[in-house]
């Protein structure tokens, strides 16, 4: 069986499952965030439930609207804190701790082989640690919190073999953007992506999170990496002992795709679709009003560090605003201690608190009609960040940093890296 099949079979109490079957499975971990949590608890109450099935298996995070931009948002947070107290949830993270998809792995909550659901489409991120993780809506989450169970269709699995090593200025974001361009925004619809290949040995959990995060942009239900030594070590550092986990050797895949990273140019997704992907050279020189580095896709220390390699000791172009949002407080602290954040701030970055920032269009850096933004986030749909007449381009931290430096979309490979030695 593939990883998705193994996890769903175990969670459904079955020896084996096959693609296309429907199963009712037990959920190992459920996550709710501030945009939807109060609706979920309100649905639970209205259905007649006063308790969740297992309060230690629910994580609640305030990450989307932090700090509250309006009185209405503050009231939502206030109600969410009451809900957390009423349902006696033990894992609650208040505003400023970080983005849910950063916190769950960072705190050691995500383990290989888990079945995990969240009220957020980018819940696929947790596949980086070998979990079958996916986004669901509020009504389904109410059902999960009440019963600990949910129906799933066992997905067909597409195997994605990653080979080669990315050149300087090219990263994992470019790999997943390339894949989106290649198979399209519904190329993996209802299916699981399972990653494999020799490149994994040189791929940290952060890079895996970037790739798994965007699996949903290809329509995928799960984006799963095998839990190898890299994942086992990551969890060991967090005091969690796990065993490696992967597919059976005789697993059947619907299709196998290969992505050779050594051939890859920096990629950019053009407005207004994640699969309108071109090499950066095709759009270089387009002026940008705003550059955004952050989000659950690319807001980790290694992403900020990559940006600092282009911006340290220099200054953002006067016609461009650079917004930086660390994915969590732990990321912020490490980036502060290592001189990464100071370098970005001295280069003219506007620093946002740890959280989703402007990525989902709620606040903190929305766009006017006709404005152009290049960001490290995951979606560029019309209306995603303010005006539907604004343009959003998606790229890697290196490409976004290089673009912020020159005020126009820039191939990072054409920019000499700056004073990397300043960074600790």
């Amino acid at each position: 069986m593939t990883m998705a099949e193994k996890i769903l079979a175990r969670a459904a109490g079955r020896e084996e499952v096959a693609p296309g079957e429907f199963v009712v499975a037990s959920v190992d971990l459920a996550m709710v965030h501030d945009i939807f949590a109060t609706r979920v608890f309100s649905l639970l109450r209205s259905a007649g439930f006063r308790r969740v099935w297992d309060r230690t298996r629910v994580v609640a995070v305030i990450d989307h609207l932090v700090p509250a931009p309006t009185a209405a948002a503050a009231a939502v947070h206030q109600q969410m804190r009451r809900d957390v107290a009423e349902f006696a949830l033990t894992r609650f993270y208040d505003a400023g701790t970080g983005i849910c998809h950063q916190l769950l792995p960072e705190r050691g909550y995500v383990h290989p082989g888990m079945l995990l659901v969240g009220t957020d489409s980018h819940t696929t991120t947790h596949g980086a640690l070998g979990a079958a993780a996916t986004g669901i809506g509020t009504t389904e989450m109410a059902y999960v919190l009440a019963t600990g169970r949910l129906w799933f269709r066992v997905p067909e699995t597409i195997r994605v073999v990653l080979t080669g090593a990315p050149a300087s200025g090219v990263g994992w974001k470019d790999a997943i953007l390339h894949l989106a361009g290649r198979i399209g925004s519904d190329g993996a619809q209802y299916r699981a992506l399972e990653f494999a290949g020799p490149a994994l040995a040189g791929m940290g959990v952060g890079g895996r999170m970037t790739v798994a995060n965007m699996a949903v942009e290809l329509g995928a239900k799960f984006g799963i990496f095998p839990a190898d030594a890299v994942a086992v070590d990551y969890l060991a550092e967090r005091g969690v002992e796990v065993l490696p986990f992967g597919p059976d050797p005789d697993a059947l895949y619907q299709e196998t795709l290969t992505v050779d990273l050594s051939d890859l140019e920096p990629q950019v997704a053009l407005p207004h679709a994640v699969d309108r992907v071109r090499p950066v050279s095709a759009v270089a020189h387009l002026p940008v009003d705003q550059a955004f580095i952050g989000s659950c896709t690319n807001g980790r220390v290694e992403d900020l560090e990559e940006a600092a390699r282009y911006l340290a000791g220099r200054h953002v172009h006067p016609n461009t605003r650079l917004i930086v949002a660390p994915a969590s407080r732990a990321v912020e602290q490490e980036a502060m201690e290592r001189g990464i954040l100071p370098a970005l701030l001295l280069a003219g970055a506007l620093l946002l608190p740890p959280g989703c920032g402007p990525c989902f269009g709620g606040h903190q850096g929305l766009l006017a009609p006709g404005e152009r933004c290049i960001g490290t986030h995951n979606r560029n749909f019309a209306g995603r960040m303010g005006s539907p007449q604004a343009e959003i381009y998606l790229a890697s931290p290196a490409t976004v940093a290089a673009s912020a430096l020159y005020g126009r979309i820039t191939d990072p490979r054409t920019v000499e890296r700056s004073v990397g030695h300043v960074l600790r």
Partner: protein
Amino acid sequence: MSSAEASHVVRGRAWVFGDDISTDLLDPGQYAIAPLQERVRHTLEAVDPRFASQVRPGDVLVAGRNFGCGSSRETAAEALRSLGVGCVVAESLARIFLRNAVAIGLPVLVCPGARETVREGDPVEVDLGSARVTNLRTGRAVRGSPLPPLMREILAAGGMLPLLRRLAAEAAEGRGWVDDLGS
């Protein structure tokens, strides 16, 4: 599946949309926590500013591939339901949108070819049981794929919330734990 659901038929005017109609178009993030009646005023405004004010109960959305892609926000499906949309017919539906539509009881149908047979404003009939979409102006009909039985059962129950209410009631009566989703 109940017989009422098997013969579930929706009739209304067609609103025709393209591919990749996202949750940001259906329910823009900048109004995420606004009241429903305010949010629905912005539903699809970026692609058809007339839609929210002129859609009538029972109208049918006919769209291309990957309808509802993007966020997990159930409010995207909820917005359509509260505007009175009778059914969404698309070449393909994004995974979470499909689940959410079923979970809140909004009828949906995957029917490649429907968009080619229908023009904006045409009267159409959607038979969910037989998965048939008929253009009542031209008489032309195309057939899609019926939803899997489990999804049809949830839709017939009015969504997941009625199932959950029944569970709570059964638990309160001490009848023990019954999983309505069966297996």
